[in-house]
């Protein structure tokens, strides 16, 4: 037993030394997989590098808050910045208008530190300290070059027009179509135009579908059609170099169908709003005022491996840093007196004990 233990430990590969891909926006992960950035540096780090190429990412929406849109926007923006073709479908009349709301990249870090040097000197020390803490993440960011694996986004500024005009962006409305065959065809057409993987990868595509099963769509009541649509998207994406990113309001479909969707997802995330004036939660968690919502990571893609990814925490708080860039932080429990120390903090939507970290 002991000897086999030693053997397995020496067998584990060093991931960090994996060569970075020459193509911007892609990097190699363990087990022969390739990562693509989610557009949120913290999320990339949590997921071990980003979304796997060929994976199906599903986001369970909170019907009361549009936090999934933040993830969707950064996901699409990141694709545009890396010149990756983007396919977008949503249940709105004019999906193309959504492109105007995508966030722009934040001014580069050097500029920022120049500007804010005087006013936030004391803050900067803490900030840099934090930066060194996260040093084990692969440093793919080339400071002076334009090739960054993951950009910082300024959620207040719209993306530059030339990025939308200069890229292949396909927008489809989910409203008009009575069956999903049409969307499936346009997805497969989109994927077939991506360059195939032949030893060296040249580009990757992103499929983003917003609020897939929202009630205004005609196919809303056809649960099995939606399931087989997702299944075929999954198998199409798996054999091409693209990532499909689908958000869906899980509470609107029946529980068993929702479970099936969760099984189909390679990576499963859930967003949850936090109530504005929840006194109990406010005393329990530090930094409650700055929190936008909670993000739980229910499933991390497991490609070419059977070992599950065990995260330190499964629930993270989404915060806006300086009101413009999205960061994820572990939940920090504030010191409380024994009387109010209920297990309220774990109400973040996940059964895991890792929901609250000290």
């Amino acid at each position, binding site marked *: 037993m002991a000897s086999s233990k030693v053997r*397995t430990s020496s067998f584990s590969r060093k991931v960090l030394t994996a060569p970075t891909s020459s193509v911007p926006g892609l990097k190699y992960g363990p087990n022969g997989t390739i990562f693509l950035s989610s557009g949120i540096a913290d999320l990339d780090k949590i997921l071990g590098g980003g979304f796997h190429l060929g994976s199906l990412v599903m986001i369970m929406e909170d019907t009361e808050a549009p936090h999934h849109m933040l993830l969707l926007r950064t996901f699409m923006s990141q694709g545009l910045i890396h010149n990756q073709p983007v396919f977008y479908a949503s249940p709105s009349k004019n999906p193309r208008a959504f492109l105007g709301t995508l966030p722009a990249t934040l001014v580069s870090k050097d500029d920022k530190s120049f500007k804010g040097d005087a006013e936030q000197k004391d803050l900067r020390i803490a900030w840099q300290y934090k930066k060194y803490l996260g040093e084990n993440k692969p440093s793919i960011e080339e400071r002076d070059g334009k090739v960054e694996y993951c950009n910082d986004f300024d959620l207040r500024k719209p993306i530059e027009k030339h990025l939308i005009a200069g890229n292949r962006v396909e927008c489809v409305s989910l409203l008009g179509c009575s069956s999903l065959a049409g969307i499936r065809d346009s997805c497969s057409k989109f994927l077939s135009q991506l360059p195939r993987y032949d030893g060296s990868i040249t580009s990757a595509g992103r499929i983003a579908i917003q609020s897939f099963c929202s009630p205004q769509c005609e196919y809303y009541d056809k649960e099995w059609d939606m399931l*087989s649509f997702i299944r075929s998207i999954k198998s199409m994406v*798996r054999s091409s170099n693209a990532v499909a990113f689908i958000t869906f309001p899980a509470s609107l479909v029946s529980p*068993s169908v929702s*479970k*099936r969707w969760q099984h189909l997802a390679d990576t499963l995330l859930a967003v949850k709003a936090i109530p504005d004036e929840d006194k109990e939660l406010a005393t329990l968690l530090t930094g409650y005022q700055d929190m936008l919502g909670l993000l739980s990571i229910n499933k991390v893609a497991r490609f070419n*491996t*059977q070992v599950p990814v065990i995260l330190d925490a499964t629930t993270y708080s989404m915060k806006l840093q300086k009101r413009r860039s999205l960061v994820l932080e572990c939940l920090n429990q504030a010191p409380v007196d024994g009387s109010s120390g209920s297990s309220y903090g774990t109400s973040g939507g996940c059964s895991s004990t890792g929901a609250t970290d000290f």
Partner: protein
Amino acid sequence: MNRPTSLLEDALSLDAGESNSRGPEKGLVVLVEDCVETSGAFVLHHLIKRFLSPNLSSSDNVVLLVAFAQPFSHYDRILRKMGCNLVAQRENKRLLFFDMLMLECPDDGVEDGLIAFYGNIQKAVEVNSSNKNITIMIDDISLLEVATNGSTKDVLNFMHYCHTLKTQFGCTIIKILHEDIYSSGDGFTFPLQMEYLADITIKAQPLITGLAEDVHGQLTVLNKGTIDGFRNSKGKIHNFHYKIKENSVDYFYPGSRS
């Protein structure tokens, strides 16, 4: 390569079954149940390796892998780390891989689609049936349901037909089912029927206390045993924890890990 002390092997007691019931009763039906939090795929990988490994007494095992969930490369990568080369086995015709990722039955032809699919399996079994142990693995039944547009009745019929292969050719049938899908709504009878048909039910569950690095979940193995009563673990429920590693899985009793 399989450690004889593995708790899973003990619980399955497949060896015992093979050594003393060579005669009339050969085939087994194994059902693996899992949920969103814990995937039971590792049990399947273990069994693939087990049935394909050359040091098994009978090297004439043939595995039919019907894959709805993952492409071949995924299984190949995993099994290679476990010391089993699926590509070579496929060339030796010991592994027959059915790539079902894209299988879709049209609305009005679900039955025909499944009949044709069953025909393929039956043909493959018949060709290999002479003096060989055949194992049919289905990963997974819940996706087969999706592929047939939710026609559970047809899926059940299909599974019954597969079970006839067990009696006719002594095939072992291993199937994965996502049990939590059926915990609500009116589909709850489906897993019950699957469990009823299974000789061994393996259930993978997360720990109630949440995710942990050292313990990835717990397995509950219900071995119904057979009427002849030769199996040593007849009607016994085994319960133990596991930790999945790249090339193997550690099984241990709760609390027995130092």
